[in-house]
């Protein structure tokens, strides 16, 4: 589900960006080269090392902390994320399978990972390709959660995406802090570990649901995600996408209490991503057309023909709106 294979064209344009940056001067060139090699380290770290720690997400006036444990074993990986604030929620992911446990309401929701990566696994394997859309350079060293870190700056080359800053662990490369910054230099979202231990020998059990039994009386909802299975449904396509955004997946998912599936298409430039949901139940919108935002995440809902189309992504409001307004019903491919 993640972006592994970048089109050749994108790679080439990435290199052009790199050359431009190099032309800017030797000091800058060194920072760029450093930035790229740190990015590569950050990209592999999360996929290889075990870690357990507490991070705080903050954005748009809310802050929420969670405990995350990720274990790699037998060629696969598992991850458990427990919310520490508000209603008790536990997210357990094994490979692409996700279980949400809502402990207060005794509900389990089964889902599949479709929208790619999340903190601290945020950097794609081929980080250099990001250079086409972000100017990348190494910044200063710093400390996060008591560990030495290297700052990697990814400055958006256009206004269609946010800039990001990553604080990567000096020892392992694991991102320990992430900031999403808009074109005004405002931080729209931040996630940072407050304590973390990395590279420990962890048992896979530590990344499995904390509750092992006693689910009698629980409600289960299965999101039943299936691959395209679009069938005869016409596709909704954006006529305009920020440069570098490619479709990375398209799935059909079952929304609770609804017979007809919702189609979700995910687009990404390798770092930021957006989803376009096409929901056949237009009545759901019920006047909810328009834009709203939480942290870096914008949601733009509108109707298109007799469908509700919801565009969701970590993009600046104007860019997201442009995508949503360019949507049209295509013939399907």
């Amino acid at each position, binding site marked *: 589900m993640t972006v592994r294979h970048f089109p050749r064209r994108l790679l080439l344009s990435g290199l052009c960006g790199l050359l431009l940056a190099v032309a800017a001067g030797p000091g800058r060139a060194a920072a760029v080269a450093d930035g790229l090699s740190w990015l590569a380290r950050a990209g592999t770290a999360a996929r290889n090392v075990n870690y357990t720690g507490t991070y*705080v997400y*903050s*954005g*748009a*006036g*809310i*802050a929420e902390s969670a405990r995350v444990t990720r274990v790699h074993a037998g060629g696969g990986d598992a991850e458990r994320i427990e919310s520490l604030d508000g209603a008790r929620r536990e997210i357990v992911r094994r490979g692409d399978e996700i279980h949400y446990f809502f402990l207060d309401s005794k509900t389990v929701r089964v889902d599949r990972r479709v929208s790619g990566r999340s903190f601290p696994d945020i950097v794609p394997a081929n980080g250099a390709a990001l250079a086409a859309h972000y100017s990348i350079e190494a910044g200063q060293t710093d400390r996060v959660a008591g560990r030495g870190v290297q700052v990697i700056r990814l400055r958006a080359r256009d206004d269609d995406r946010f800039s990001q800053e990553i604080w990567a662990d000096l020892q392992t490369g694991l991102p320990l802090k992430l*900031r999403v*910054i808009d074109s*005004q*230099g*405002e*931080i*729209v*979202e*931040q996630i940072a570990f*407050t304590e973390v231990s990395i590279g420990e020998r962890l048992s896979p059990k530590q990344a499995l649901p904390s509750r092992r039994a006693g689910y009698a009386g629980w409600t289960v909802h299965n999101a039943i995600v299936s691959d395209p299975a679009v069938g005869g449904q016409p596709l909704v396509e954006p006529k305009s996408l920020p440069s570098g955004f490619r479709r990375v997946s398209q799935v059909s998912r079952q929304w609770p209490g609804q017979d007809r599936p919702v189609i979700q298409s995910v687009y990404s430039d390798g770092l930021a991503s957006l989803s376009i949901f096409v929901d056949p139940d237009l009545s759901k919108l019920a006047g909810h057309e328009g834009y709203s935002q939480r*942290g870096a995440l914008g949601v733009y809902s509108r109707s298109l023909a007799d469908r509700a189309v919801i565009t969701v992504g970590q993009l600046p409001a104007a860019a997201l709106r442009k995508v949503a307004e360019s949507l049209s019903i295509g013939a399907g491919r």
Partner: protein
Amino acid sequence: MSDREVDHQLVLRAQRGDKLAFELLVNKYERKLQRLLSRLVRDPAEVEDVTQEAFIKAFRALPTFRGESAFYTWLYRIGINTAKNYLAAQGRKAPTTADIAPEDAEEASGDDLARDTNTPEHEMMSRQVAETVNAAMDALPEELRSAIMLREIEGMSYDEIAAIMNCPIGTVRSRIFRAREAIAEQLRPLLGTHKDRRW
């Protein structure tokens, strides 16, 4: 008397030697200015020091304030200069991305709460305040909640709110006040933890 005129009234009193009037302005703008300066100065403890310094500088400069601009616009410039001088004295450079145009001064609201505060303690405390306010908002009767939201979030005048809510202006006035009182009641334990707090 408009918000801006209230500020000018307070400045006028401060200019006549009334320090309490100036403290009311500090009460009003301390968070806004701290948040602004935290874009230049990252460490929360330093931000507080620089903000204190900026207010003192503003107080000393009061005779030069003529009331042609809004008080906050004027304070904003003093704040930015204070932060830049502070960073220069430390041999640090102000981050250029944090440089925002003075026109933004009055727009500088509606950002996330924790983004400038690096320490978990600061985040925790800010979060507590935010959570308390949100919880108190949730507990409000609908007509009080709508009234205060229209005022504080949409920035509407009582006139406009009265038109929307279809009630007399006096009712709007009293609903907003009751909403504030109810939220303040919940906040008091959180804000009044200092024994020697003056108010």
